[in-house]
Structures are given as C-alpha cells and as structure tokens.
C-alpha cells in the first residue's frame, strides 16, 4: 500500500468513526435554539470539529425526521434559521446517550483487557 492509499484508508476510517458521533453531538447542543454557524463554533470550542457542509444538510435531515424543529428569525441584521430539539428529539437523544455510555463502557473494558 503506497502512502496515498494509506492516507485515504486512514481518512475514511476516521470519517466513519466520527460520522456515528455527529448526530449525538448535534442533538446534545440543541436543547436551546441555535443557528447553524453558532453550532459549528460551539462544537468546535468543545473539540468536536464538524464541517459546515456536513452540518447544514444534517440539520435539515434531523428536522425532516422530526428530531429538530426550526424557525426563521427575521428581526436581526439578516434572516437566521434557529433549530431546536423537539420532544421526540429529546427522547431519542436520551436513548442515544444511554447507548453511547454503555458503548463507551464496553470499549473501555475492551482496552483494559488489551493491556
């Protein structure tokens, strides 16, 4: 495997690993209304990097699935679309969080055994 292929493989594995955490990361931040770019920034501050070109389509998808709701605010300097978790979204978020915790505990166990 040459250097380019190795890098591609590494990138695609990393992307796959991160993809699964994105929905959970986004849902975690949506208890209060947020607009797209503020979400990019707040996630970035917490060490979760997400490209805007991934986040915006994801927000629309989650809205379509009924996990988020949105509202346009026209009052400011420019129109902004604010997203917030729906009740159903909060329910799903709690479920996902529980699954994540048990998954993380399982992974921790696996790494302990590895040592």
């Amino acid at each position, binding site marked *: 495997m040459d250097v380019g292929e190795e890098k591609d493989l590494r990138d695609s594995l990393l992307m796959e690993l991160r993809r699964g955490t994105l929905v959970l990361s986004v849902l975690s931040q949506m208890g209060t209304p947020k*607009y*797209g*770019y*503020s979400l990019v*920034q707040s996630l970035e501050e917490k060490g979760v990097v997400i*490209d*805007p*070109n*991934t986040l*915006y*389509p994801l927000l*629309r*998808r989650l809205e*379509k*699935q009924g996990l988020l709701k949105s509202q*346009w605010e026209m009052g400011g300097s*420019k*129109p*902004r*679309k604010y997203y917030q978790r729906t009740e*159903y979204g909060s*329910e*799903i978020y709690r*479920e*996902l969080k529980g*699954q994540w915790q048990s*998954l993380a505990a399982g992974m921790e166990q696996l790494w302990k055994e590895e040592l």
Partner: protein
Amino acid sequence: MNKRDRDLMERYIYQVVRRLPGEQRKEVGLELQELIGDMWEEAEAAKETDTPGGAFSMDEILIKLGNPADFAKKYQDDAHYVIGPEYFDTYWWFMKIVLVGVLISVLFVGVLEGCREVSFNLDTPDFQILAGVIAEAVAGMIANGLVSAMGAFGAVTLIFALLERQRIKMDIGETAKWTARELENAFSGKKDGWTPGHLEPIPHKKALIKRSDSIVSIIFSVFVCVLLLFAPEVLSVVSRENGQWVSVPAMNLAEWNRIYPWILLSTLFGVVDSVIRLAVGHYCKTVMLSGIVFGGILQTATCIAAFKTTTFLNPDFIENCGRLLGEVFAENREFLAYWNIETVTNVVLIICLVVILAEVAVTVYKTLRYGIE
C-alpha cells in the same frame, strides 16, 4: 462585502441549489446565505484581531465549504438510481443479450436483403449499379443497426427503471415507521418485526429460472421483431417473369406501417415478462402473474388486435403467385383452392395464440408444482 465577494457567494449558492429539488432551493439558498455571511463576518473579525488560522477571504471561505456539487450531494437523503445495484447485474446481462440479438438480426437481415437486391440486379452488367446496390444495403444495415440498438437500449432501460421504482415502493411499504424502541435493536443488530420465520424457503431446483434458458427466447424474439420491422419483404415467393426477378410478399406490405406497431408492442410485452422472470429468478406468484398478464392477456390481446384490425397477410398473395408460378401453381390447384386469406389469417392467429397460451400454461404449471410451497 464588496461586489466581487457577493458575486462569488451568489454563484456558489446557485451552484448548490440548482442541484437540489425545486421545493428545497429557496430555503437552502437562504441558509447558505446566512452561513457564508456568518463565516465572512467571522473572517472580518479575525482579520481585525489578526487571529491566525482563520479563513480570511471569500475565496478561502468557499474553498473551506468545498465543491458545491459535493455540498449539494449531502443534501440528498438517498442515493438515486435509474437501475440500482440489486438489478444492475441482471440489467447489464439482459442488455448484452438483447444487443447481441439485435446485432445478429440486423446482420442477418442486412445480408439477406443485400443478397436479394444483388441477385435482382445480377443481370445488370453495370458494375457501378451493383456497387451502388451493395453500398445501399450496407448503409441500410448500419442505419437499422443504430435505430434498433438505440430502441432496444431505451426499452430495456425503461423496463428495468420501472421495476426499480416498483421495488423501492414495495420496500418503503414494508418499512414501518422508525421508533425509539428500534434504537436498542439497531445496536444489537436486531430488526423489529423480522424473525427467521420470515425467511423464504430456498426455491425448488426445478423452480429456478436460469439465465441460459432465456438466451434463446430473448434472441428469437428480437430476431423476429427486427426481421418483421426492417425486412418483411424477405418473406416472399421469388421467381423470374419475362427475364426479370419478381417477388410476391407473403405479408401485406402496403399496410405495414399500421401493422408493425403491434409487433413492437407484442415484443415489448414479451421482453417485460422475460425481465421480470430474470429479475425474480424463480417461479413464484409474481412470475406467474407476470406470465399471465404480460405473456398471456396482453400478448393475446395484441395478437388479436393486430390480426383483426389490419390485414396482416398479403390479400393478393395467391393470385400473384398463380400468375408467377404458372405450372407449379396449376399442379397444386386443388390444395391451393383452400387458400383463402381469411382462413389463413385465422390459422396463423390460432398458431400464435397456441404458442402464447402454451408458454403461460408452462409457467402456471411450474409455479404451482414447484414454485409455491
């Protein structure tokens, strides 16, 4: 934001939204305007405070957002296929067989037509006329080949595309609304509502429909269709009259423009039936239903319509043959006296219907015997 930057932003937004469904365009356009505006404001602020690592110009912002085509792709929830992976292999195989069938038929018809034309002109000593006849035959063959190949390609693709849409509809119908309860199952790999009891039994060996079995029937259908479309005149009685070659066609060429749409339609129904058989792969209710509807009812209706609304066979065939064949005709006068255009048409129609119904009967028998557990 200066004019150039605004122009770049608008171009970028246009390139994303033009790839999206109409109802999404306006809102996504506004969202992107908001996003790029926010990134631009952030870049301006970073410029003032000299923050390293930020995107500072509109160019850099748009580069960070990436190719608009890729951005638009992320807005599309599902992969869109004309022919999806499930059918693609069968589609490609079927397409190759049909195109090979078209190639063989066009070559055969072209050579036959060419020989016929050349033999009619053999008495002509002029080489130039002969060369012209040959060139015309070759050009006709190429033109027929292109028209048939494009028609076959379009028809086969359309049939598979409709099948694909139908499959997606069925899949959607089968998928229950996603609930939070499924979350647990998703992690454990289970799927609600599905148990091993849903596993269909492996089809009986004799219920399997092999691709190899279909090759001959597909090529034969394409061959008959191409022959009747492009060279119905080869089905003729040929003889010499007054030193000239004369042919009496068995088909009613004067009415052929009204007849050949029926032939096309009948072939199309046959192809739809073959495609469904191959896509499903074994005799079952779906294949039986397809056989009854496409192979049976529709083909029967097409045949009856073709034979009853048009005069399929040449009404002057016997009269012209009598004039052309003279003595031979006279020797068989007793036999040929029974040759009445209506009777012959009915006999040919009955033969066609028997063949159609026999195929339906085989499908129904195999399905009931081996295909339904």
